């Protein structure tokens, strides 16, 4: 067995196959990582177009462009596509590219499963998107799909949605298992756990979160499926079921899910800030412990999404305190990043700009999160644009900025060329300004009392909605510049050195640029 495998492997060492079948059949971590990243970028644009449709309708009070029913389909699909189609696959793509290089491995531990876990995704999202063209229309019950709106009262496309969620879940679990297997088994000699780069650490923890909570999501959509088609009443009060049970299950998945979307971002930023400060990361071990604490806490705070459902007083207090505690490890991370920059020798290339914006704007999202944690005040914030502002601050200038920062940071390593620094900085400033014009006013309209997910609003909310819509178009169209920069870098550009950046540190920078098809064929030694 061993000999045949080895003999078979020999054929592969000539490099990638040619044509379309290279991408269909590939088991190479770089090819798969590339496909994940392109897929998530297409989804980002798709979900982005939906966001722009929403913002265009909300530019003025009254219904101008679309009907309320289609508006609900847009908010639902925008959320689902951005969470499951854009942010999560982008992080998996980055993990595919970087984890083997960072731990000194030739490839991922389970390359065939890697291929499968990617190729499920286009089908899952193709099916979800096709519901837009069905007679019943796409899912229209919000990305949180609360029962019974998503069961008894759902359009018939909900069945396709459930199947799509199952597929995404399978893909995520396989991706996570692969990352865990790679990290556990394929680290270079000498790389102990406490020597692992932070991106590897944060993904290691994220992968466990995925394995723990994706089955819960699968369970909850299966219960919906049973309610819709097989006459059960899990979430139907008239049949003895419980609509609140849905929310408990959903958020038991949903809260760890939001950390799944931010922990790898912490990892990326923890590489970029030391590099461009030319100084080691401050408090490495406390960063690792803080990540682990956040992951642990993420399992015991879910009901802070449910403060207004009528939980008993003691339950509310528990979830309020537990949620507030998350501020401590998150604060530790922010303080560590600032201390890393302190007395460094700073330069501000595009990845650094995005990383600094991440720290500042994510912290603002953290502040509004702290405000939301206060249960009494949450009765005023809940389900308003204040919440919309909060989670977009942590997801767009949070998770998305970190992903973009990571792409700029590693792009020279991936394709051997430097990107155009001027265009990169232009992209940063347009994004930075656009994102703040879009989401900052949402704090105001939320506090002033505008509920979320409404297609039309009272006149006092008109001005800031108009501002937010202008910002959304600036931000949205700036991302086309990103596309242009990436394509330009792939085609040409200044030849990158192996180190790429002056302050670079880690195994990935010892490989030539572009990195060889099979990363490390000989395990490197880590001192």
């Amino acid at each position, binding site marked *: 067995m061993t000999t045949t495998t080895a003999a078979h492997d020999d054929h592969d060492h000539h490099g990638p196959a040619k044509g379309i079948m290279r991408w269909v059949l590939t088991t190479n971590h770089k090819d798969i990582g590339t496909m994940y990243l392109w897929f998530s970028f297409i989804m980002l644009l798709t979900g982005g177009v939906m966001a722009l449709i929403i913002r265009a309708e909300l530019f003025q*009070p*009254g219904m101008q462009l679309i009907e*309320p*029913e289609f508006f*609900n389909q847009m908010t639902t699909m925008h959320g689902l596509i951005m969470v499951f189609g854009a942010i999560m696959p982008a992080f998996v793509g980055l993990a595919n590219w970087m984890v083997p290089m960072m731990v000194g491995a030739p490839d991922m531990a389970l390359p065939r499963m890697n291929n499968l876990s990617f190729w499920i995704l286009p089908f899952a999202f193709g099916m979800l998107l096709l519901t837009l063209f069905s007679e*019943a229309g796409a899912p*229209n019950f919000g990305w949180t799909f609360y029962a*019974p709106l998503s069961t008894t*009262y759902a*359009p018939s496309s909900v069945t396709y949605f459930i199947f799509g969620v199952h597929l995404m879940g399978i893909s995520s679990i396989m991706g996570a298992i692969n990352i865990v297997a790679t990290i556990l088994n394929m680290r270079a000699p000498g790389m102990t756990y406490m020597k692992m780069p932070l991106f590897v650490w944060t993904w290691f923890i994220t992968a466990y979160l995925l394995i723990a909570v994706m089955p819960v999501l699968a369970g909850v959509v299966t219960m919906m499926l049973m309610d819709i088609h097989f006459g059960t009443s899990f979430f139907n*009060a008239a049949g003895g079921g419980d*609509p609140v049970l849905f929310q408990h299950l959903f958020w038991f998945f949903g809260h760890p899910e939001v950390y799944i979307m931010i922990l790898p971002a912490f990892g990326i930023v923890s590489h970029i800030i030391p590099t461009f*400060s030319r*100084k080691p*990361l*401050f*408090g490495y071990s406390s960063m690792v412990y803080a990540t682990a604490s956040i992951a642990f806490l993420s399992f015991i705070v879910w009901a802070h999404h449910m403060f*207004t*459902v*009528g939980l008993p007083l003691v339950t*509310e207090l528990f979830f*309020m305190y537990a949620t*507030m505690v998350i*501020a401590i490890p998150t*604060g*530790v991370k922010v*303080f560590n990043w600032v201390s890393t*920059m*302190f*007395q*460094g020798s*700073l*330069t501000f290339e595009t990845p650094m700009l995005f990383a600094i914006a991440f720290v500042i704007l994510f*912290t603002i999202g953290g*502040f509004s999160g*702290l*405000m939301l944690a*206060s249960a*009494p*005040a949450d*009765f005023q914030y*809940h*389900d308003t644009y204040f919440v919309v502002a909060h989670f977009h601050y942590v997801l767009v200038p949070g998770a998305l900025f970190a992903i973009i920062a990571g792409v700029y940071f590693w792009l020279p390593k991936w394709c051997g060329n430097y990107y155009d620094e001027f265009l990169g900085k232009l992209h940063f400033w347009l994004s930075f300004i656009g994102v703040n*014009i879009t989401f900052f006013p949402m704090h*105001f309209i939320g*506090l*002033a*009392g505008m*509920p*979320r*997910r409404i297609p*039309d609003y*009272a*006149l*006092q909310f*008109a*001005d*800031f909605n108009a*501002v937010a819509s*202008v910002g959304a178009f600036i931000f949205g169209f700036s991302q086309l510049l990103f596309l242009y920069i990436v394509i330009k870098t792939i085609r040409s550009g200044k030849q990158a050195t192996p180190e790429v950046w002056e302050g670079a540190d880690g195994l990935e920078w010892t490989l030539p640029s572009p990195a060889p098809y099979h990363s490390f064929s000989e395990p490197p030694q880590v001192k």
Partner: protein
Amino acid sequence: MKIRTWLSLSSIALLLSLSSIVKAEWGVNMTEGVTEISQSIYDLHMLIFWICVGIGVVVFGVMFYVMFKHRKSKGAVAAQFDESVTLEWLWTVIPTIILIAMAVPATKTLVEMYDASDAQVDIKITGYQWKWQYDYLGEDVSFFSNLSTSRDAVYNKEEKGENYLLEVDKEVVIPTGQKVRFLITSNDVIHAWWVPEFAVKKDAIPGYVNESWVNVPVGQEGVYRGQCAELCGVDHGFMPIVVRAVSQSDYANWLDEQRAEKEAAALAALGDYSFDELMTTGAEVYAGRCAACHGQNGEGMGSMFPPMVGSDIVLNDVDKHIDILINGVAGSAMQSFAEQLTDVEIAAVITYERNAWGNDTGDIVTPRDIIDARQ
């Protein structure tokens, strides 16, 4: 060049929208509301807000100092320290103390909010797609409250009024100076009953009865507006809440009026109505209650909401037509209108549907037919 043109265009657009803000009324913060609870929530909100501002000033201040001072272009040489146990302890312990300082007043307020005991007035609130029912327990007063903004205003065919989307056909009336308890539930999907000035927001969940309460101080009589806060389907944005707080004597008079109106409506059902009278009333009822789903001209909407025009039930089966209005259709968005409309209104809207938009059946359904069908 192109980028520059585009940039200047978007900045002009931004300036234009900013200048309109200056003219308009600024609503940028949470309302202080009118009750003790809403005031303490506002205070909590501001406390946390200023704490966050303080932390932000320190953290971002240090960051900007570093970005300015420790630049490589200014000749900064990187120090190589990477750990300080003292610092790590410090920035764990200080935030903990701040959090405790936030949690203590929050706990106190939450305990008060949860104390719905000794209420003097009990109002059961039931959410429907997409309206609210108010039931004054023990008072024999019950009614539905619908959005009264016209569809024409929504679709920009007529001017939007001051309370656009925040006005209803029948306000819920509560007395000031008394503890009013709300018992909140739902008939279909989850809704949330929210009046910002009372700081009352509670989900209306089928199968659950949630509690909340308000005590509007004497002297704060007035109209308070809110909206459904939980996505509940296509017209989620169109089910507002309007509460009128009145003095206790006005409240007692209002209750008497409601009971008198109900008796008058029961008597009216026994009267005789001409075809034209029924058609006129029917058109009004249809526009207010039916058009949102079945279309302004009976054309229906999507696969969920069937058309009225040419429908077999509307053209032929009058008994089934009445039955659907009175009992609703199980497992669909079509509710029972038995409690929502009077006998006259149900008769009128059925007559209207059977004779409008080319459905010229010539059928007349009288209020007496409805009384019979109810039995």
